[in-house]
C-alpha cells in the first residue's frame, strides 16, 4: 500500500535526449509497420488527440491507426520495446478521460477497424470491429428487424469499442441493460501483444467470465480488436410520452412510483426547465418551456401490451401532479421528441462555450432528495446547472455550462461536481453509471471502495497487465497496489 507509480524522469537533459532518440526509433518501426499516413507525430495530431470530450488534456507523442488485430498486436510489441504506455481510443466521445493519453503514451486509434465481419440472424449476433460507430451498426441491420440496444447520446459518433471500454449506457439501457449485457465475446490483444478470444456465441463459456471483466475496464486490461455483439429484435409497437410537471420533485416522485409499481419502461428520462428551454430553442420539438421538469418515457412492446403501460404511466404521472401528458405514437413525432433529448448537449452550447457533464447513480428511491441537494450545491457555487438524465435507473447527469476562460471558473465547476458526487455516494449511490472512472474520478474510488476492495481490483488488473503499461493512471487511484510501471 501507499507505493508510488514510477514515471520516467524527463527533466534530466541526458534522459531527454535519449527519450527523443527512443521516440524517433519507435516512429521508424511503427512507420515500417503501418506506413507514413497511419503514424502521426506532428504537433497538430499530438494536440488533436490529446483529449476526449471531457475537460482534461494529456499528450501522446505518437498516434497510430491500425487496421487489423495483427497490426494492433505488432504495435503493442513495439510500444513495449520502447517502454511507452499504451492507450487505446475510439471516437473520443468519452467524458471521464478514459482515452486521454498520459504524457509519453502511444495512442492507438481504432476507428479504422470499422468492419462488420459477419451477422448471424438466427442466433442474433454479429462480429464487428471496435471502430464501428454505434448507430452505424443499428442502421446496417435495420432491414433484418434487429438493432444494437445500447444507445448513448453520442451514438452517432461513439464506437462499439468505446462502448465496451466504458460499459456505456444510454436511455434504452433501462429495460435492455448496459453494454455488458450485449457483448458476448471479444478478441483481445493483451499487454504482451498476444491475441486471445474471450467468451463467444455459445452461452456460459466454462472458466472465468473474462469477457464480462473486459467490459467496463477502460482499456486497462487489453485492447479489444473485435467484438461479438448481441442483437436485439425490434419492437412491434412504440409510443413516447412527454409528461410535464410544475415541480421537479413531482417528476422525481413519478419515477420512483413507476419503478415501485414494477413497471420498467424502455426508457424514462428527465429534463429540468433550463434544459427544456435550451432544447426547445434548438430543435423545436414541442417541449414545454414553462414546466419545471418533464419526463420522457418510451413504451416499446407488443401492440396488445403497450396500451396498458401507457395508461399506467399516465395515471402515475397525473397522481403526482403532472400538468400535461402528451402521447406520441406517430414515428416522426417520436423521433422529434427523442431528437430533443439526444441533442441536449449540443443545445447547451447556446448558453456557454464549455460544459461539464457529471455522471452518478443513486437508488431510485433517493432521486428526489439528491436532485434537490444538487441544485443547492450549484447555487452555493454560483454556477449554472441543468439536469438531463436517465431517471429510470437513477443515473443522474448534472450538467454545468460555463465559460472556461473566466478566471477560476473551471475550478469552481469541478469543486461543485465533486460535491455532487459526494452527495450521490452518501445517498447509497456510486461514482459513474456509464461514463466510467477514467482519470476524472480515480481519486474518488476510495469513497465507494475499501482499501481491500481496491487491492482486489488491482490484483485483477495486474493479472492482465503485470507491467502496468495499458492505460496507466486510469480507474484505480495511486497506491491501490504496487505496479511496476514501464518494465518488461
Amino acid at each position, binding site marked *: 500500500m501507499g507505493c508510488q507509480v514510477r514515471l520516467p524522469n524527463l527533466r534530466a537533459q541526458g534522459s531527454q535526449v535519449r527519450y527523443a532518440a527512443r521516440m524517433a526509433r519507435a516512429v521508424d518501426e511503427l512507420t515500417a509497420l503501418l506506413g507514413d499516413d497511419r503514424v502521426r507525430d506532428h504537433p497538430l495530431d499530438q494536440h488533436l488527440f490529446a483529449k476526449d470530450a471531457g475537460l482534461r488534456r494529456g499528450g501522446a507523442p505518437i498516434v497510430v491507426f491500425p487496421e487489423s488485430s495483427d497490426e494492433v498486436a505488432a504495435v503493442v510489441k513495439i510500444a513495449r520495446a520502447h517502454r511507452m504506455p499504451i492507450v487505446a481510443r475510439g471516437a473520443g466521445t468519452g467524458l471521464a478521460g478514459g482515452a486521454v493519453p498520459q504524457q509519453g503514451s502511444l495512442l492507438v486509434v481504432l476507428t479504422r477497424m470499422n468492419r462488420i465481419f459477419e451477422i448471424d440472424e*438466427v442466433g442474433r449476433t454479429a462480429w464487428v470491429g471496435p471502430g464501428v460507430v454505434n448507430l452505424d451498426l443499428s442502421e446496417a441491420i435495420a432491414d433484418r428487424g434487429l438493432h444494437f440496444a445500447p444507445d448513448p447520446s453520442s451514438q452517432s459518433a461513439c464506437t462499439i469499442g468505446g462502448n465496451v471500454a466504458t460499459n456505456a449506457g444510454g436511455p434504452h439501457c433501462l429495460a435492455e441493460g448496459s453494454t455488458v449485457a450485449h457483448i458476448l465475446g471479444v478478441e483481445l490483444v493483451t499487454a504482451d501483444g498476444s491475441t486471445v*478470444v474471450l467468451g*463467444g456465441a455459445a452461452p*456460459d463459456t466454462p472458466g472465468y467470465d473474462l469477457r464480462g471483466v473486459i467490459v467496463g475496464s477502460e482499456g486497462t486490461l487489453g485492447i479489444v480488436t473485435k467484438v461479438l455483439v448481441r442483437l436485439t429484435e425490434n419492437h412491434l409497437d412504440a409510443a413516447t410520452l412527454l409528461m410535464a410537471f410544475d415541480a421537479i420533485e413531482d417528476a422525481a416522485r413519478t419515477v420512483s412510483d413507476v419503478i*415501485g409499481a*414494477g413497471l420498467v419502461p424502455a426508457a424514462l428520462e428527465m429534463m429540468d426547465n433550463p434544459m427544456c428551454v435550451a432544447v426547445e430553442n434548438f430543435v423545436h420539438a414541442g417541449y414545454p418551456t414553462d414546466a419545471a421538469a418533464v419526463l420522457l418515457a418510451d413504451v416499446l412492446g407488443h401492440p396488445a401490451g403497450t396500451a396498458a403501460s401507457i395508461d399506467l404511466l399516465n395515471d402515475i404521472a397525473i397522481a403526482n401532479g403532472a400538468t400535461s401528458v402528451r402521447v406520441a405514437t406517430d414515428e416522426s413525432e417520436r423521433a422529434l421528441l427523442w431528437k430533443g433529448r439526444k441533442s441536449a448537449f449540443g443545445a447547451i452550447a447556446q448558453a456557454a462555450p464549455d460544459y461539464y457533464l457529471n455522471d452518478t*447513480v443513486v437508488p431510485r428511491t433517493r432521486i428526489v432528495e439528491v436532485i434537490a441537494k444538487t441544485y443547492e450545491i450549484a447555487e452555493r457555487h454560483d454556477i449554472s446547472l441543468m439536469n438531463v438524465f436517465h431517471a429510470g435507473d437513477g443515473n443522474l447527469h448534472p450538467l454545468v455550462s460555463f465559460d472556461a476562460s473566466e478566471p477560476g471558473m473551471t475550478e469552481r465547476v469541478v469543486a461543485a461536481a465533486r460535491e455532487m458526487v459526494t452527495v450521490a455516494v452518501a445517498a447509497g449511490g456510486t461514482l459513474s453509471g456509464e461514463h466510467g472512472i477514467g482519470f476524472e474520478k480515480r481519486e474518488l474510488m476510495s469513497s465507494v471502495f475499501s482499501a481491500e476492495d481496491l487491492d482486489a481490483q488491482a*490484483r*485483477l488488473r495486474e*493479472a492482465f497487465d503485470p507491467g502496468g503499461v495499458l492505460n496507466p493512471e486510469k480507474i484505480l487511484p495511486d497506491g491501490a497496489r504496487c505496479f511496476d510501471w514501464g518494465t518488461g
Partner: protein
Amino acid sequence: MTTLAAATKRLLSRLHDPTVAVDAEFIVAPTSMEEAAEILGAATAVGQAVAFYGAGTHRQIGNPVDADLVITTTAMNRIIDYQPDDLTVAVEAGVTLGELEAALTDRNLTAVLPETEPNATVGGVVAAGRSGYRRLRYGPTRDRILQATAATGYGKVVTGGSPVVKASTGYGMPRLLTGSFGTLGLIGPVLLKLWSQPRALATVVVDDAEVARNVAYRPLAVLGTGGNARVYLGGTMEEVDAQVEAIGGRSSDGLDWPEPHDPPLRLSFRIPARFVDEAVVAARDLDATDWVAQYGVGIVEAGYDRITSDGFSAARAWAESVGGTLVVEASPNDLRRKLGAWGSPPDSVELQREVKDRFDPAGICNPGILPGGI
C-alpha cells in the same frame, strides 16, 4: 489471530501429521464473511485445500476436488436488504432460491433465478453461474448481479460492483466471481436486480420450436423436450392472449416448466443458438433418456443412463467444432474424471491462471475444478 482461525489452523495441521490417522472432512459453517476469510487465510497459511458447499445442487459440475475442509454457507442465510421500490435485494449466500422467491411475492417480483432448483442456494447459483430458462427474455443471472462480496483465498473480505442498478465504476468483480466455482474464494452476499412478474403468463405447446420463436414476441423461453416444444409467454392479459392466438397450439395459464430429472449422467451442450436443433440430434444419438433444449439461448441439457466413450467424444468434438462445449453436469466422480468435466480448456486459460493466482495464491480454493485444472 482469533480463536476461530487458531482452531482451524490446528485442525488443518493435524491432517498433515502422519502419526494422526485423521481421515475425515471438517465442515465449518462460518456465520460471517469475516469468519470465512479468517478460515481461508488459515488454510492458505498451511496450504490446505478447501471446498465450498451450499445445498449441493451443483456439486457434480466440474472436475472432482479433493479437499479436507468444507466451508458451508448454511449459517449465512439472511435476506439482508430488500428494496422493492428500487427493484433490488441483497441476500447472503445460503438463502435458497425458494426462500428468496417467497420473500419477493408480496410485490409480485422475481429474481429470475433457475426455476426448477428451489433448494439451491443463491451462493451456489452464482458460483456455478447458473441461469434459469427465462434468460431468453431477461438475460443470464450474471447480468443481474449488481454487487458481490467474497472472502478471497488470501483471506480478505472484498466487495465489488456497485449498490445501484447501473454502474460503470471500477472492474466487474461480480462478473469475475459469477461462474468462478469458488476458485477465487467464498462468494458471499450479493445484490440482485429484480423484475416484476408479468401480470399474465401462459405456456403454449407447439410443433416447431424455432418457428414459434420467430412468431412469438420476446417470449420468456422457448423449450424443446423429449415430449414436445413449448413457448412461454409473459405480459399483459391482452398481449398474452394475442400472442397465444398468433402462435396457435394448445395453451395453458401459468408457466409449466419441464419436470426436473435426476439422471445418473447429465450433459449440457452449450453451443451458438443457431445449432440447437443439431445439438438435439447429437443428444438423442447418444440415447438420451430426456432433454431440454433452450431455443434462442443455445443450451441442450440431456440425461443418460449410460454412454459410450466414443459417442461422447464425437459429440464433444462436434460441440467444440461449432464454438461450443459439452459439459458434464452430473455424474459419479470417476466417470467425470474419465470423460473430463469440461472438454478442451478455453483460449484464455493462461490468463485465467494469472487471475486465479492473484486471488488464491496458495491454490487452496476448490483446486482444479475449472477447465485447465484451475
